[in-house]
């Protein structure tokens, strides 16, 4: 690797190496078959070049064994790749249980990031090395995409719902953060830096940063400000203790997982899923709460005995 001509992006997360190994494997397959095809064509083209104007080569029909061979060999390689790649993918899409949750809001054309302690950042994300971080992301306008090449992670950030990704950095340093999904005029400027720090540096940075109240505390304030407490604190509406991550029984007999998506829907479209035993009396809060405030409410609900990670089987 020399200046201005890098061959490989930095490997700075726990999953980067595994993905690179698969990448090398595929590159090897690619080079092998490209090589075979190129060399064979060159060899045949020279060896069997036309020598006289009216020569008539002996005709061949084809060969079943050969056809079978070049069907089966690629098939085997493809199956191997699929199994390898998919198991890697499934493993990579499971966040570790004890991940620190950071909230991300994308808007044209900036990233707004919020640490659970209340620190906010714009286009910059400070994280400690060696600790799993889970990002819960949404967008205020169009579809964006959160992409950190050095970590080999990428996920679209979609308005109206939450997506998430996780990573665990392995190397301190500063890495690119890109918006990967074309999002309008200044798409190319919607980028930032992910700064990975030693844990003690990170703690120092956290305590040195200007802090708003923590996400959960802000949520608790909203909980009172918007008078959620008058129903949800009195039994008229479902209580929030140990709600997050649990299975909720609905009026129509179905059960849903109380995940971010469900909680968000219940705030914005309360009539969509009515909890069994309660009346559909809650008004919608659509238009009254910003994406940020909804995230704060979620943080508050999670702080009330969150069962940390959902696990769902249908």
């Amino acid at each position: 690797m020399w200046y201005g001509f890098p061959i490989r992006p930095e490997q700075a997360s726990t999953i980067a190496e595994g993905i690179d190994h698969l990448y090398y494997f595929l590159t090897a397959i690619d080079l092998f078959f490209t090589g075979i095809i190129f060399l064979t064509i060159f060899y045949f083209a020279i060896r069997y070049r036309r020598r006289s104007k009216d020569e008539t080569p002996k005709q061949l029909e084809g060969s079943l064994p050969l056809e079978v061979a070049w069907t089966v060999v690629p098939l085997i390689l493809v199956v191997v790749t699929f199994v390898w790649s998919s198991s890697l993918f499934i493993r990579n899409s499971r966040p570790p249980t004890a991940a620190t949750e950071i909230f991300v809001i994308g808007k044209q054309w900036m990233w707004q990031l919020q640490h659970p302690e209340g620190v906010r950042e714009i286009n910059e994300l400070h994280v400690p090395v060696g600790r799993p971080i889970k990002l819960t992301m949404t967008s205020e306008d169009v579809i964006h995409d959160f992409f950190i090449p050095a970590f080999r992670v990428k996920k679209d950030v979609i308005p109206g719902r939450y997506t998430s990704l996780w990573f665990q950095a392995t190397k301190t340093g500063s890495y690119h953060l890109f918006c990967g999904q074309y999002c309008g005029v200044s798409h190319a400027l919607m980028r930032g830096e992910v700064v990975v720090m030693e844990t003690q540096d990170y703690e120092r940075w956290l305590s040195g940063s200007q802090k708003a109240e923590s996400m959960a505390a802000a949520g608790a304030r909203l909980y009172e400000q918007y008078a959620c407490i008058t129903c949800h604190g009195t039994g008229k509406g479902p209580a929030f203790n140990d709600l997050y991550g649990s299975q909720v029984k609905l009026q129509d007999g179905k059960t849903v997982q109380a995940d971010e998506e469900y909680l968000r829907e219940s705030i914005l479209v309360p009539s969509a899923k009515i909890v069994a035993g309660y009346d559909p009396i809650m008004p919608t809060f659509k238009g009254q709460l910003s994406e940020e405030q909804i995230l704060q409410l979620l943080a508050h609900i999670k702080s009330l005995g969150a069962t940390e990670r959902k696990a769902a089987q249908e």
Partner: protein
Amino acid sequence: MSQHVVPKKTYLFVFAALISLTILTTSVAMIDLGPVNIVVALLIAMCKASLVALFFMHLRWSSRLMHIVAIAALFWLAILLTLTLSDYRTRQWTPAAEGWEAPSIQLNR
């Protein structure tokens, strides 16, 4: 020209069947059968559509090629619906983190 001329009686018979099925589907829809309603409605609709295609559109007397075209169109429609729904119907299923089980908590008043 090897065209099949269908007796009027056949057409009238098919028409009567179509009208009866319309009455049937409308009446069934008035009864609450939960999720079965839509299944019954679509099954009846498929019967009606097949009657129209087979008799009015002469598919019954057409060559195999026309059958293939009709079936291909339905097959492609099925691809579109199935694979699109394969996304929507499984969005809730996130792969479980290792060693985790969903606790079930009853919400009580």
